[in-house]
């Protein structure tokens, strides 16, 4: 029950802030829409006609996941820096629920809100462009959740760095390119890719959305590997975050920016 109330409070807060920064929110949604349209268009005009459909789809799926990875992984660090600037980080840390739980519910809340927005926009874009991706929600959803879970582990690590160092904006910029790499390079490129966060998940989603596969086609093995990968990253992230939080408390860094 406490968890649910915590989640509802943070969902409510995310909603209120989106409403209060409405121009910002609208700009974001429009940007998305035009980027989607642009992607459909560019590939339509300049791509190789024989592989055109696959190209469009490949780029769009990657783009969505890149954005998702970006928001999930940066959000933790971003929220912590923001709270530190506002001076509310210490109040948050004094909740008996703990910072990571509070921020987790915030993350879930914003993932849900943005997930819905992206989903709706994608449908609208597909309608506008007349190009259709295979959106098999039943197959995508479990993979999506596991993938986000793994991303979240990485996000916790970034959050841990943020709580100690605060000035992590430059690092986040570099991270954007790394993440772009991770989402665009196919899993088959190297066996090493299996050890990286969320690459497996993105690859599986591509199989579904572009290759038209279902969960059954994919089979247990890749799913199990995905599960282990996500779980390991999540636990590692959580441990690292708690370690950093403790270090910040030892050095008196929580209230500082």
């Amino acid at each position, binding site marked *: 029950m406490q968890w649910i109330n915590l989640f509802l409070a*943070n969902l*409510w807060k995310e909603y*209120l802030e989106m409403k209060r920064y409405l121009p910002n929110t609208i700009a974001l949604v429009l940007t998305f829409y035009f980027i989607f349209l642009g992607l459909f268009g560019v590939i339509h005009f300049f791509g190789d006609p024989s592989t055109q459909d696959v190209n469009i789809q490949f780029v769009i799926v990657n783009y969505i996941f890149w954005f998702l990875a970006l928001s999930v992984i940066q959000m933790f660090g971003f929220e912590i820096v923001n709270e530190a600037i506002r001076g509310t980080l210490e*109040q948050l840390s*004094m909740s*008996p629920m*703990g910072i990571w739980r509070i921020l987790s519910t915030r993350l879930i809340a914003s993932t849900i809100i943005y997930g819905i927005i992206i989903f709706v926009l994608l449908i609208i874009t597909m309608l506008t462009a007349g190009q259709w991706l295979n959106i098999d929600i039943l197959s995508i959803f479990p993979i999506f959740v596991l993938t986000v879970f793994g991303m979240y582990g990485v996000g916790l690590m970034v959050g841990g760095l943020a709580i100690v160092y605060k000035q992590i904006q430059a690092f986040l910029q570099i991270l954007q390119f790394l993440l772009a790499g991770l989402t665009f390079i196919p899993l088959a490129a190297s066996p090493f890719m299996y050890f990286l966060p969320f690459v497996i998940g993105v690859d599986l989603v591509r199989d579904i959305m572009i290759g038209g596969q279902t969960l059954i086609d994919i089979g247990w093995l890749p799913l199990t590997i995905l599960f282990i990968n996500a779980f390991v990253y999540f636990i590692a992230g959580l441990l690292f975050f708690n370690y950093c939080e403790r270090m910040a408390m*030892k050095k008196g860094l929580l*209230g500082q920016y």
Partner: protein
Amino acid sequence: MEKIIEISNLTKTYRKRKSREVIQAVNDVDFNVYKGEILGLLGPNGAGKTTTIKLICGLLYPDSSEIKIKGIPNTDSRLESLQYISAVLEGNRNLYWRLTVRENLEYFAGNRGRSRKEVKEEIDKLLQMFRLKDKENELVNRLSRGMQQKLAIAVAMLANTEVMLLDEPTLCLDVQTGLEVREILKSIVSNYQRTIIISSHDMDVIQDICDRTVIINQGTVVIDQRVDELIKLFEVRSYRLTLTEPLSLDQQKAISTRFPTNEYVEDQAYSYLTVQLEKSEDIYQIFQVLQLNRTPIDSIDRKAIRFDEVFLKIIQGDHQYAMD
């Protein structure tokens, strides 16, 4: 009396970022906090009040020892111990400026796992009590500093914890709002059975609302005593003699050697001698000096001492008698 917070041998050092120089912010501090009292943490700037408060709130880890909150060590079982604690920290950054008054209350309650429905009535009551009802839908960044401070205290109240810590709650408030906040704090203790720890360097606030005071200077506790007893202690020792003739230079010298802190002033009609006595018998020494010239005494008064004078004396090291 039930001990709610136990602090023993508490030490905290900071390290400066660049120079790695060590700052001893809190040094071997001991004190307890008892259920239902208002404890005043008093000390000059940089004494270690905020550090002590943050250590109690589990926002800082001590170098050594641990703080027990209702018997729970707040380092090993941090989240559990936080169930009993809420705080308004230094400054005005305890709230979300882009949320309204009511939304802030609801959000912070939500962060402690309480639903909006569950706290609705409590919020109404608090808004009434803090006279913020007409501002409930106002964004916090549009409130005055005093209203923000009241709201921050209301948020801490809504946490429904046994202990509430307030770091300099009346700083930057005008006289009227300051008094209002004091009244609210007093009523919280008497009507809600809360325990309050309040830090301040405003002696007046401490004298007005606190039962007991712990005075910290340079990271160590110099006094831990009931406020009324503390004042009495210093009062007893401060005497003012009104003389109808001035003292001779020899007399003045004799007084000064025995009572270095004496104050002597003359005006046309009277001379005034103020002395701090270490023991009440010391008054006879003064009589001896006066007897030399048979100086006539008009009156002897025990000088009423203000708490801020007590505080200054303690900070300047004149506390050897107050400690026992």
